[in-house]
């Protein structure tokens, strides 16, 4: 009974993180295992929760207070799969940190930062209260600042702090205004009372919310920090940004749009649709020109965030939620979380920065090359990998709803992506190395981590039915 409570996904890592300073004074050696313990517990607990969950949303009231006045957490099997993807990639990033990057910075601060980032991301995904979302957003943001300076990338982090602070101030303003106008901070109730208010007010509030969340979700306009921070981040750090933070923040945007602005605000959703498509186009164009690997993945990540938001906005633009399009967007989100983690871990293991430098590295380290390819091919949408199904599902739903412009932009973007990612693979396997540096050795444990992610991606690629059914209630036959 107790184990069924989703609060544990937030509370247990929090408790472990608070105990880290205590442990570091008494059992110094134990500190390195605590983030792993937190991540492992979360993955197992999420799996258990999913097995007991259904498609409908269960509300957990914190403190036993009625959810209209207190804080509540939302969980369902759909939400559970997003949480599972986020926690699994976080656990793998934590493993990577524990094995390879513990000497990069303070050995006390980083276990705390990673564990609390995990807790905050889960909070952002599950909370049903606007101010609680703000608090968890700040928690993940500050954990993000610490993770961003892991390899002393001070200037990029400064930009991140500035943009993120603007975002959070806007969010706070919007939340307070919404409370004053509707009397509630609970998302569902605020959304219900919104109907009585004037349209200009609603538009401004929605713009404020989107701008605020756009910072962490890697959308325009506040995403100028993404490329510099990715470039200077550590391996585990880049995975946290690409998979954990952006996944949680995107889901938070989706949640706010769906619950608060769900009923019939076509102008809000259409504005968001345009924003998403512009982000998609800008991201792909920027990635196309990049020769720095991590920056390339950063811009690709921005583009994918734009795509997912645009798809969700399209699903809601007619006022009634289009289940197929919404589920396709969620599926794409989950696949991106997994694939980006794999690609970024692989790049971190290579230890090289630009396209020219990695020439031929894939032939020297064959397993690493294979794993990176699995991630890249999934991102492009190659059959046999998870990304194929999510892209197919998306195209089918878009065409089915008559959104031809969107489909066109999507296909063009997919072409761009295929070009620069295949260029990456070409350089990886067929290029000639311009540096004589020997590649760092990869321990077998790290190899197993990458194997797990790659296997998962291929598994979903060959048997996507389980996930599709859980996310949308449709089966594979319904998708094709």
């Amino acid at each position, binding site marked *: 009974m107790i184990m069924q409570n989703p609060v544990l996904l937030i509370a247990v890592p929090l408790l472990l993180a*608070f105990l880290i300073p205590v442990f*570091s004074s008494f059992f110094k050696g134990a500190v390195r295992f605590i983030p792993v313990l937190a991540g492992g517990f979360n993955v197992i607990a999420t799996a258990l929760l999913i097995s007991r969950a259904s498609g409908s949303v269960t509300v957990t009231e914190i*403190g036993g207070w009625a959810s209209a006045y207190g804080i509540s957490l939302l969980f369902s099997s759909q939400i559970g799969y997003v949480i599972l993807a986020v926690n699994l990639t976080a656990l793998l990033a934590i493993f990577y940190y524990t094995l390879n990057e513990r000497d990069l*910075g303070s050995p006390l601060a980083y276990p705390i930062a990673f564990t609390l980032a995990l807790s905050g991301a889960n909070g952002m995904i599950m909370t049903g209260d606007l101010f609680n979302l703000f*608090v968890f957003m700040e928690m993940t943001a500050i954990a993000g600042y610490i993770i961003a*300076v892991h390899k002393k990338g001070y200037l990029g982090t400064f930009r991140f702090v500035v943009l993120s602070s603007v975002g959070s101030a806007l969010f706070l303003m919007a939340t307070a205004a919404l409370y004053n106008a509707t009397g509630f901070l609970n998302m569902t109730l605020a959304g219900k009372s919104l109907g009585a208010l004037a349209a200009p007010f609603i538009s401004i509030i929605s713009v404020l919310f989107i701008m605020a969340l756009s910072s962490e979700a890697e959308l325009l306009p506040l995403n100028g920090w993404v490329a510099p921070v990715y470039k200077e981040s550590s391996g585990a750090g880049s995975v946290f940004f690409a998979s954990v933070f952006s996944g949680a923040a995107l889901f938070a945007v989706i949640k706010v749009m769906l619950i608060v602005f769900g009923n019939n605000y076509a102008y809000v959703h259409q504005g968001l649709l345009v924003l998403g498509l512009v982000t998609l186009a800008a991201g792909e164009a920027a990635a196309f020109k990049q020769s720095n690997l991590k920056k390339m993945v950063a811009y690709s990540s921005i583009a994918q965030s734009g795509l997912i938001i645009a798809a969700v906005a399209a699903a809601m633009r007619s006022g009634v939620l289009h289940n197929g399009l919404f589920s396709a967007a969620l599926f794409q989100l989950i696949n991106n979380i997994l694939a980006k983690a794999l690609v970024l871990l692989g790049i971190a293991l290579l230890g090289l920065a630009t396209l020219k430098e990695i020439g031929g590295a894939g032939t020297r380290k064959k397993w690493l090359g294979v794993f990176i390819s699995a991630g890249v091919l999934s991102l492009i949408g190659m059959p046999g990998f998870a990304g194929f199904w999510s892209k197919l599902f998306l195209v089918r739903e878009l065409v089915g709803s008559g959104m031809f412009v969107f489909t066109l932009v999507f296909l063009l973007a997919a072409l761009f992506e295929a070009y620069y990612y295949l260029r990456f693979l070409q350089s990886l396997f067929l290029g000639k190395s311009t540096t004589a540096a020997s590649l760092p050795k990869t321990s077998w444990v790290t190899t197993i981590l990458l194997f797990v992610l790659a296997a998962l991606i291929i598994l979903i690629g060959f048997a996507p039915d389980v996930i599709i059914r859980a996310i949308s209630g449709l089966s594979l036959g319904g998708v094709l």
Partner: protein
Amino acid sequence: MKKVIAFLLFLGLLFFLGTGLEQGLKLGDRNTLAGKAGEAYLKRTVNSADPSASPSRVEYSSETDIEENAANTVTSVVVGYRSFDTLGEVTVLFLAATGVMALFFTSGKRKRLALAKPNFILSVSSGFLLPLIILFGAYVFTHGHLTPGGGFQGGTIIAAAVLLLYMAGNAYKAPSTGLKILEGLSGAGYLLIGLAGLLLTGFFLQNFLPQGRMGALFSAGIIPVVYLLIGLKVSAELSGIVSDYMGED
């Protein structure tokens, strides 16, 4: 040129945001509590059938089985009804202290920041002001449920005392390991209270201790305990940040 554009943006946003928000907000004299969450918090009827209609049974220093029996309603909101937010806030401060530690971390020895020699008034008065400041800070956080104040405010006052110590004489060094342990234990304590609520009543952070009489020092269930822990935690954290800035290890 850039400043002109920024200024125009300032005026434009002021006009645009202001007129838009004006249409939905209930400002100044138009604002009432009717039907809002604030009303239910004040009446202590959150878990009743109809919070805005139920009569409030609150009576200072008489009634004993009211929902959240802290006399200070803001405290009962912060640590009672919305305790989860406060848990997040405590974690945010913890992260800030960790972040400052991560930034100033070096593997070698650190040099302490040299401050100007304190003048006579400072060094003498800090001697007798210090216990008063700490006492006041402790008063503020133990009485958070009765008067304005609470853990965060009291903790900041105590951290100001530590800053005073640093500024008044160059020989003081804050015990950083002790502070970190205090920080960690009080934070863990807050979570354990929450988990105890989960085990005993099935709800995380339920107020499971007896509520007592409103206005008494020992009232409001877990609220004074939580604020005590928060007070200790915040003072340890902010003192830790001060000592990190001063260049201590």
